[in-house]
């Protein structure tokens, strides 16, 4: 029978937590902070897309809402960054619930759902680019105030541990989902909605729950982004770039697997860095790399890096994994 599987989460997080003791290079830490940020944002996408089968192209809507809420509360209302962070996550979850309610209630699935989520994110981006409260075209700058109370730190290592803690939390949440009735129902909805309904699954409620959790996790990434960079504009917060990163990491790492987003984020970011070293910073090069990697993954490793690793090092409890291979995704 399936072990709850928290041991591997502890091991992975503990190993990553040691990195700042091994290197104090700001370049490496900065790289890992960004990779972990993408892993977090991608894990949010993975809950809805990987486990629930609802592919969103608009996770920027949640990322941006988290980021802007944290920033605007500080800049415009003088609210402390810590509660601002929590409110940002809640706001992202709320936006997820609303978009989910509207799109699932009208029965949107597949590419229609993807397009509608993209449209919602774009509407938010346009609103944010003209609304005075977000600083409109100029953007929002959070005042530099390097104190723990202001959620700002001199040391990259602290930021690194904070984003790692958020990633750890997201891994625990996903593990809990995997071991729960809600998770079983979510996967059932992904595999076959009609069959799920016949077995008593409230498909609407299940999708809505997944979208809310998904949005909250991705919003946490946005909140972190705001504190790390202290600057936002509409294109950063709500831009399609983050929607793409959110889905690319889990797809390359392995959709519907707990470590998929983390693996994918590390692979994608490493490739991006490697290419930069080889060719300099040609604009758009990262997108070309993403595209090429995506084509390779979809063509040769449909279950992503996680699936590839399992094929190389087969484990004893392989049954569910093999099941995935036999399946043809629609």
């Amino acid at each position: 029978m399936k072990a709850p599987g928290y041991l591997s989460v502890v091991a992975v997080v503990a190993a990553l937590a040691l990195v700042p003791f091994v290197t104090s290079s700001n370049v490496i830490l900065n790289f890992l902070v960004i990779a972990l940020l993408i892993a977090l944002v991608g894990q949010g996408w993975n809950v809805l897309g990987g486990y629930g089968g609802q592919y969103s192209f608009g996770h920027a809507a949640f990322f941006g809402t988290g980021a802007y809420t944290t920033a605007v509360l500080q800049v415009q209302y003088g609210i402390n960054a810590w509660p601002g962070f929590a409110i940002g996550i809640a706001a992202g979850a709320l936006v997820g619930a609303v978009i989910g309610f509207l799109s699932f209630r009208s029965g949107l699935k597949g590419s229609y759902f993807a397009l509608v989520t993209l449209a919602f994110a774009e509407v938010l981006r346009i609103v944010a680019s003209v609304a005075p409260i977000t600083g409109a075209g100029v953007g929002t700058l959070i005042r530099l105030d390097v104190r723990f109370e202001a959620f700002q730190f001199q040391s990259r290592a602290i930021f690194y541990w904070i984003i790692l803690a958020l990633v750890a939390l997201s891994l625990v949440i996903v593990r809990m989902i995997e071991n729960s009735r809600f998770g079983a129902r979510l996967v059932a909805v992904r595999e076959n909605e009609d069959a799920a309904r016949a077995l008593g699954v409230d498909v609407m409620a299940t999708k809505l729950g997944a979208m809310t959790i998904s949005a909250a996790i991705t919003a946490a990434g946005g909140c972190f982004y705001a504190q790390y960079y202290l600057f936002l504009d509409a294109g950063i917060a709500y831009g399609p770039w983050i929607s793409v990163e959110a889905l690319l990491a889990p797809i390359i790492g392995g959709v519907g697997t707990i470590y998929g987003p983390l693996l994918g984020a590390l692979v994608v970011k490493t490739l991006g860095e490697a290419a930069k070293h080889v060719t300099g910073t040609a604009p758009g090069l990262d997108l070309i790399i993403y595209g090429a990697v995506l084509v390779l993954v979809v063509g040769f490793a449909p279950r992503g890096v996680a699936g590839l690793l399992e094929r190389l090092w087969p484990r004893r409890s392989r049954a569910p994994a093999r099941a995935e291979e036999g399946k043809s995704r629609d």
Partner: protein
Amino acid sequence: MTEPLLGVHNVSKRFGGLLAVSEASLSVESGRITGLIGPNGAGKTTLFAIISGFLSPSDGRVVYRGRDITALPPHRLAREGIARTFQVVQPFAGLTVRENIAVGAHLHIAGRRAALAAAERTGEEVGLGSVLDRPAGGLTVAGRKRLELARALATRPSLLLLDEVLAGLTPSEIRDIVPVIRAIRDRGVTILMIEHVMQAVMSLSDHVFVLSEGRIIAEGKPAAIASDPKVIEAYLGHGAAQRYAGGAAHAH
């Protein structure tokens, strides 16, 4: 007589210009196996979809335990104790057999471990014990039919709607599964089954309804139905009853 568990009252279903079900009425008594037979395209699956909440009827009512359930969605009906199988099997292809059945078990069992254990018991009951850890997508036709049955059964239904669970099986596979269905009935689960395999449905059913071109044209004990001229004509075409009677006379 006590009130039937399920009552279908003058139900019609129109698909555009096609009247798939036309003022059909039937009732299902508690604790019995009721058969629903009829030629291809008669509207049997459509009627099941209406009873189980997947389709809403153009007209008519469905009453379950004395309550009008016509407007309820499938997941609510499942909670009320109505489970169905699909004629065109609908496995969760990427999951194992055990995980498939556990989705049904979760209807009344919150814990993952307990649901998986219950799924294992149900799987063994319908003869899937040896393939519990296989992916459902890789099962044979017979295996998929059993999986449909197991998942529905795992919801612990009061009323089980079986849509051609014997179709596509070999005679020996049918011989294996017929006692399983009878055992389910003997445990107190009421069954309404659509079936084309005449010998099986006649031997299993306590009562049979015949649907033809959307209408209920006959009902009664299996033996009486088998020799009903209206039924023979529905299956074999106009005038068939006479030819059949003539043929039978010759054979004697």
